[in-house]
């Protein structure tokens, strides 16, 4: 039976902060405009696009994880039927992209990392792009790519980040293998451990995982009639038009990215994917080009989530109060830097968990290897550490005989506390309530169905930053305007990854401007025609672009009401917008189209461009604990009930309750969807997802070997939405895109220990690992 997700408004918390309740559309369970289109297959995803005369592009990829390219001979391939272009590194106007890598310790200093569009003299990971082919058909392009003769000389590689940091290890890049190193020192850790009644040490490992979106990387590029290189692509970041321009060595205003509705992003479409290759092939051939990566190549070569090694040493008083955390993190960057340094920063800042810990030290490093590169993925470093800190919380609680909920209540952050990096928590933290509700919602304990089956329960909490790092000075913009008939247009360069990003903007604009939702049209994600809104990453889009739309709508409302007051001869305060009309305090009304015509006659603008700037700050020295890193955090608690077969080690998750304080649910349906989807993705991380890389060779390049959970492998996730109204987003909303993926792995590991006494510290929590831990083999 499918249990209904529950929306439980948290009246306690909400009343405490005065959550605005008299809203018409915001907070309603609205069916998103994009939902029907997707279900009826009307949505034109990136790969659905076709143009007359279109070529098909493919990427030839490296077979080896570490090799020198001695020669590339494309003579035969170039003469094959249908082939229009073959490109190698020498054909790329600017083949090397440099990025500044943050990382504050002297061991690294400020580093510039390079990325080659196409491999030059060497390859650093299996699947690294080496050449491009465009041909009349995809088959012809693939056959030609296979006919390109690349002569490799194999080089020694390094495939483990710890080994990569040893002296004499093969260098992945000339600058050395240490890519970034962050440290946090907060309080007197040694003294704090001396006070501790119990000290728990743990060594945890997490795995490579893939974003595994339904829609692989895809797009179509063409040179439009105005000469602009136009790329219609599945991306989380339309601002990559600048990267394409840089590679092509053309002005940035000569490249346009049109973002499509995405079949999933999860961070995997945050870095450049096909767009640079499409731009190159369209530029070279002058013809439209389509590129769709196969599932195999996506699994083979696309950036993964970082595997982490996490060492924790946790000291607590007999009361359960955590007094010290000593944490060492080591992550695998793979062959190129991508966003590794920032992922590690997120991990560093959140490593001690959403708890008040007076003494914390974190030493975090990320190293290059010849493995598949790693980069952004939902949770962005703040995820791996949940497995570490929540496993530790459970173990401390067990050592002291405290319940999981008590343990969290004793240690939960609250407003006014200072995080180890020196950031003062200035919004409400509902963690004790979230933990209590999650635990209570598990209900009656399921009786075991056989003597060899054990039942157990586990709790895990997390906090996830939303919005970008404050010193990145994040901003977003949106244009809101009325047409003459009273229909409303919202324009904002927001990529919609499937979370309802566009739909929420419509709800906000309609709410403020008093029109029905059906009267709103939204245009998104076009770098030439929509005001730029920044990336759909970092759980930031509702927060940032929601605020931009709110600001634009409120300004527009004000403009119109001033005009209305003039037309009606009343004070500004005596008019309001509702039901597509101006209403006066004395009961008169003026239909919106009439007001808009009047505005037109009076020269009053019927639109407004809103720009929202996030609270900004300067870079902080984490080591000195100097201050703010992120604008705010979203807090959550998950409770799991598992069944363990003690003869085979098979674990089945019977129940999962996921509770998050989202500040304000703009559309509870979308919020619950994010929570359920994230939690299920988190269960895949917990139980089965694993990109197996052996000496740099990816062993899991199909969905027969890379396992993701299907509907029958997971329970119905019960999503409980708590609304404290304390977020920085519109109407007090917090970001909810990433947070729900964090806790399931630790919640399940804790439940397994509850059931069996066995502590698993390596992800995924496979039945084989449990069988070994139980001493069955």
């Amino acid at each position: 039976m499918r249990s209904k997700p529950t929306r439980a408004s948290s009246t306690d918390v909400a009343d405490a902060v005065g959550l605005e309740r008299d809203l018409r559309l915001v907070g309603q369970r609205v069916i998103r405009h994009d939902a029907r289109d997707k279900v009826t297959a009307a949505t034109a995803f990136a790969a659905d696009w076709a143009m007359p005369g279109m070529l098909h592009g493919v990427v030839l990829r490296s077979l080896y994880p570490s090799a020198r390219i001695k020669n590339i001979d494309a003579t035969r391939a170039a003469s094959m039927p249908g082939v229009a272009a073959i490109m190698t590194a020498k054909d790329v106007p600017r083949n090397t992209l440099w990025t500044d890598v943050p990382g504050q310790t002297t061991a690294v200093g400020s580093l510039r990392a390079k990325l080659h569009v196409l491999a030059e003299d060497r390859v650093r990971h299996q699947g690294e792009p080496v050449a491009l082919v465009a041909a009349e058909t995809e088959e012809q392009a693939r056959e030609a790519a296979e006919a390109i003769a690349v002569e490799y000389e194999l080089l020694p590689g390094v495939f483990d980040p710890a080994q990569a940091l040893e002296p004499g290890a093969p260098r992945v890049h000339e600058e050395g293998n240490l890519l970034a190193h962050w440290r946090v020192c907060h309080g007197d850790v040694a003294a704090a451990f001396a006070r501790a009644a119990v000290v728990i040490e743990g060594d945890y490992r997490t795995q490579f995982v893939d974003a595994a979106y339904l829609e692989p990387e895809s797009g179509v590029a063409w040179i439009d009639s105005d000469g602009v290189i136009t790329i219609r692509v599945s991306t989380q970041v339309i601002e990559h038009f600048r990267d394409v321009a840089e590679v092509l060595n053309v002005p940035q205003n000569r490249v346009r990215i049109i973002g499509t509705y995405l079949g999933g992003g999860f961070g995997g479409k945050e870095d450049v994917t096909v767009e640079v290759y499409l731009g190159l092939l369209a530029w070279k051939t002058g013809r439209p080009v389509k590129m769709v990566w196969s599932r195999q190549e996506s699994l083979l070569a696309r950036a993964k989530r970082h595997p982490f090694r996490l060492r924790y040493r946790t000291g607590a008083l007999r009361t359960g109060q955590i007094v010290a955390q000593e944490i060492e993190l080591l992550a695998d960057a793979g062959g190129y830097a991508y966003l590794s340094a920032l992922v590690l920063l997120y991990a560093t800042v959140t490593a001690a968990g959403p708890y008040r810990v007076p003494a914390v030290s974190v030493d975090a490093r990320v190293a290059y290897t010849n493995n598949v590169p790693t980069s952004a993925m939902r949770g962005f470093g703040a995820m791996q550490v949940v497995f570490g800190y929540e496993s530790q919380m459970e173990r401390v609680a067990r050592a002291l005989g405290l319940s999981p909920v008590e343990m969290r209540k004793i240690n939960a952050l609250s407003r006014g506390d200072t995080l180890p990096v020196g950031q003062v928590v200035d919004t409400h933290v509902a963690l004790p309530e979230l933990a209590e509700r999650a635990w209570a919602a598990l209900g009656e304990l399921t009786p075991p169905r056989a003597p060899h089956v054990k039942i157990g329960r586990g709790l895990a909490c997390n906090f996830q930053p939303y919005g970008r790092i404050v010193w990145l000075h994040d901003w977003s913009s949106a244009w809101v305007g009325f047409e003459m008939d009273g229909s409303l247009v919202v324009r904002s360069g927001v990529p919609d990854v499937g979370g309802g990003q566009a739909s929420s903007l419509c709800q906000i604009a309609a709410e403020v401007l008093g029109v029905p939702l059906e009267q709103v049209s939204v245009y998104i994600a076009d770098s030439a025609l929509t005001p730029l809104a920044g990336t759909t990453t970092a759980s930031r889009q509702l927060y940032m672009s929601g605020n931009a739309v709110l600001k634009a709508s409120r300004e527009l409302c004000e403009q119109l009401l001033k005009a209305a007051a003039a037309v009606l001869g009343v004070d500004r305060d005596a008019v309001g917008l509702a039901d597509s009309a101006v209403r006066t305090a004395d009961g008169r009304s003026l239909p919106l189209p009439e007001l808009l015509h009047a505005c037109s006659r009076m020269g009053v603008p019927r639109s407004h461009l809103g720009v929202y700037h996030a609270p900004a700050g300067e870079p902080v020295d984490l080591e000195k604990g100097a201050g703010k890193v992120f604008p705010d955090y979203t807090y959550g608690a998950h409770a799991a009930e598992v069944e363990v077969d003690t003869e085979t080690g098979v674990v089945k998750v019977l129940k999962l309750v996921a509770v998050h304080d989202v500040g304000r649910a703009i559309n509870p349906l979308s919020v619950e969807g994010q929570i359920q989807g994230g939690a299920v993705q988190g269960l895949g991380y917990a139980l089965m997802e694993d990109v197996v890389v052996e000496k740099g060779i990816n062993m899991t390049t199909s969905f027969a070997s890379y396992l993701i959970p299907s509907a029958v492998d997971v329970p119905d996730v019960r999503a409980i939405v708590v609304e404290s109204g304390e977020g920085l987003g519109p109407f007090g909303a917090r970001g909810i895109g990433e947070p729900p993926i964090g806790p399931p792995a630790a919640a399940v590991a804790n439940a397994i220990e509850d059931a069996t006494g066995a502590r698993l510290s390596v992800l995924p929590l496979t039945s084989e690992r449990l069988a070994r831990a139980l001493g069955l083999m």
Partner: protein
Amino acid sequence: MKPAPFTYVRPKSLAEALGCLDDDGDAKLLAGGQSLVPLLNMRLVRPTTLVDINALPGLATISPTPDGGLVIGALVRHTDLLASPLVRERTPLLAAAAAHVGHRAIRNRGTVGGSLAHADPAAELPAAAVALDATLTIVGPAARRTIPARDFFVGPLVTALEPREMLTEIEIPGPVQRGWGFAEMARRAGDFAIAGVAGIVTPAAPGRGRSSTARLVAFGAGDTPLRLPGAAALLAGQPIDRALARAAGDVAARECTPRDDVHATADYRRHLVGVLTEQVVLDCAARLGS
């Protein structure tokens, strides 16, 4: 990806189908396509001709035999096995095995003959066929022949079928085997098993719980469906209790020959074969006792 180009033919008779195989040494038979089509799409196989046998008459039937057994046509779908009262009644082991094959969409298309001829060492139906001592009928250009299931499976994805031959039917001998058991462990619902065991225990006489013969077959634990003669021998003539079942499991774990892959190590597969054998033996005994 899409398959490499091939010629598609859809013969209307067995003779015509065999003729197609005769014409093209690189032809492949298409039945349910549940294993072949993914292999085509990944271009792991590139046949020049695809001989679609779905229009062949008479291969999709399930018929009772006088000795209490069944003859099952090669084009019978897994779903048909599950829906058939005859199968449930006469070969309940086969029905149990079919329930573990893939997902519903796969069971709706996939065929018994296809599963046997594909011969995945981790597949359910080959193991069930060996445990049930089935006989397979093969037709070729020259003649029709029969082969016991236990001799049909030669290696991973390799069978005794010659290139121009076709599997047409499977006969499961009577009488009805009431002492059956089937268990598998897969990482996800619907996946090929990490390891599994199918078993039949046949009582010698009216006495309950005493076996004269047992056939135990492991899958996912060797290059073919793997008979476990040592474990089976342990059960012969003995009253089955938990200790004996466990002992049989221990022997089974030792005599299977699994390999490591990304999903599990050989050691874990051995462990599973032991546990599952014990469970299957107890299930066989319980069914005989009831």
